[in-house]
């Protein structure tokens, strides 16, 4: 990992050092994430993307469900809500409707968002409610020690798929787009500069924004599936396993096989739900919500 990131860092480093102290609840560190886990990189990208908006911390609410990724809100200095497994989007929906001016970001995982929370996921996308949904997708249930998830690839080993997983995986982005999300993108913890830009664009978008963030869990997914190290995992899954939309446009289909597309995959305009609701209130002859 050292060699790869060192080279990248030189190019990507920002001229002004970023001050995280305004965004991190220092007293709540250290975090619970294992060494080699990509969640910390995702957190960093998210904070920088939020900072770029120039909006005060109190304008943001971070809502999560249960799982490793769902611990994110506890570490950051915003309005934060750590809820039930799978239910983050339902809580977020109520909060957003009661306080439409809040920018609501949901941090969730592949199991939390797509298995137990799958119904809330598709319905939030369908409404096009202005919520950013960050799916930390590491292909496994980390918090409960490594069971296969709805994104685990066929043949992979988990504590509940010792003979190799036979469940076909969801494509988070295709599902989000089909369900009606108006901003759909994919990034990785490895391509952190790109991820920061995507997250910023997602936050600035008005409507449901879903970001499939390919991330790695060396402790379980890596160990069970014989990846040599966290860096090896990142290279194989996040670097070699993905290709940017731009690069992909110049490649023949056989070169794209088995690779996930990175970048903004869908961006469209459609009436956002709180705006739609404001119109409904007007139609009902009601006063504007506070």
């Amino acid at each position: 990992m050292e060699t790869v990131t060192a080279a990248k860092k030189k190019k990507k480093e920002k001229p002004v050092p970023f001050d995280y102290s305004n965004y991190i609840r220092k007293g709540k560190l250290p975090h619970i994430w294992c060494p080699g886990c990509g969640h910390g990189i995702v957190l960093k990208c998210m904070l920088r993307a939020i900072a770029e908006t120039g909006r005060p911390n109190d304008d943001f609410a971070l809502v999560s469900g249960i799982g490793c990724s769902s611990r994110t809100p506890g570490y950051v200095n915003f309005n934060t809500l750590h809820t039930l497994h799978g239910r983050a989007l339902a809580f977020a929906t109520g909060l957003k409707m009661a306080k439409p001016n809040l920018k609501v970001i949901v941090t969730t995982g592949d199991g939390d968002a797509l298995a137990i929370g799958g119904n809330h996921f598709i319905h939030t996308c369908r409404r096009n409610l202005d919520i950013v949904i960050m799916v930390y997708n590491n292909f496994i249930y980390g918090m409960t020690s490594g069971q296969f998830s709805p994104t685990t690839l066929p043949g992979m080993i988990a504590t509940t798929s010792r003979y190799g997983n036979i469940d076909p995986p969801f494509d988070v982005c295709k599902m989000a787009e089909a369900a009606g999300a108006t901003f759909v993108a994919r990034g990785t913890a490895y391509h952190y500069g790109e991820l920061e830009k995507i997250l910023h664009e997602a936050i600035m978008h008005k409507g449901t924004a879903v970001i499939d963030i390919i991330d790695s869990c060396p402790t379980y997914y890596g160990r069970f599936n014989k990846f040599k190290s966290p860096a090896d995992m990142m290279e194989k899954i996040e670097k070699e396993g993905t290709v940017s939309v731009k690069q992909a446009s110049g490649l023949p289909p056989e070169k794209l096989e088995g690779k996930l597309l990175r970048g903004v995959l869908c961006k469209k305009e459609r009436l956002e739900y709180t705006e739609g609701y404001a119109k409904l209130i007007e139609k009902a002859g009601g006063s504007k919500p506070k």
Partner: protein
Amino acid sequence: MAEKKKKFMQGNEACSEGALYAGCRFYAGYPITPSTEVAEILSVRLPKIGGVFMQMEDEIASICAIIGASLGGAKSLTATSGPGFSLMQEGLGFACIAEIPCVIVNVMRSGPSTGFPTGPSQSDVMQAKWGTHGDHPSVVLTPATVQEIFYETVRAFNLAETYRTPVIVLYDEIIGHMREAITLPEAGEVEVIERKKPTCKPEEYKPYAQSNGSIAPLAAYGEGYKFHVTGLYHAEDGFPTNNTKLIGEANERIVNKINKNVDKICINEEFYTDDAEIGVVAYGVSSKSAKFAVKEMRKKGVKAGLLRPKTIWPFPDKAVNKLAKQVKAILVPEMNLGQVYYEVERASRGQCEVKGIFKVDTEAIHPNQIIEEIKKFA
């Protein structure tokens, strides 16, 4: 002042009116018989006053949405029935541990499972108390008339705000759909309690601070306090803790904040209990039959009396125990196979005989059934 207009409405309508009177500005729900009218009415009424009505994807989402909205500062409501109430148990527990005010209406129907959706029952009394896992506070109100559904819905919001806890309004399909004449009070006539908000500096705010059993004010998100809420056991600052002493204290605190205020929360109607020799303990629709039966028996010189809890949880132990001391027997008519019956037996401490009158064929308990049982002890 002009004479107040009487209105003819059904229980579910009175519930909606009560919610609006109490300042409810957010409703999330999922269609289910026999509670759907609450949603239908509020979908029309809430937008007119700038409130929000959401039809969610299921009941799990509904209760989670009202908790989220409550954290946004809105008084929030959901209404459901048996199967939906089962789905809400997870969210109910979250509201208990995170201490988020909200109101859940359960219009009881026959069960288990889909049961007989249009058939009334009173079989969710224990689910309302123990449905969600873990030791938790329970405040459950059991109105018995359409007018009372209005008042008890207002009281539910008041209790939710006062004690920072979810409150359940529990009534049966019969009262939910029955039409009675009711009078809607003017604004200001019935007390409406608003949420206590913090006045301290944001950096000093502890959303779960407690001193002498007081309940910490609850800030709304986006109003400068930037606090943390979790369903994990947490310290006074709201952040998760592994400290076993704090966990034990927190669990006891959320239960005790209700148990220590039983006298304020428990309200009963006493009907001819002063000199009663035969007692009846009944709630909801069965108490209507019980009241009729007691009246009839009194006409015949039989000293029967009715104790009718308007708050079923916490259970009115004191009132039941007092009644048990003076009567030969207590009869407990209820549309289930024995739920409050066992509580009456427990609270009576063997001081009198306790007999249940149970019915689960989805027909109301007829006054004659109760009269026949009273006669056996007369």
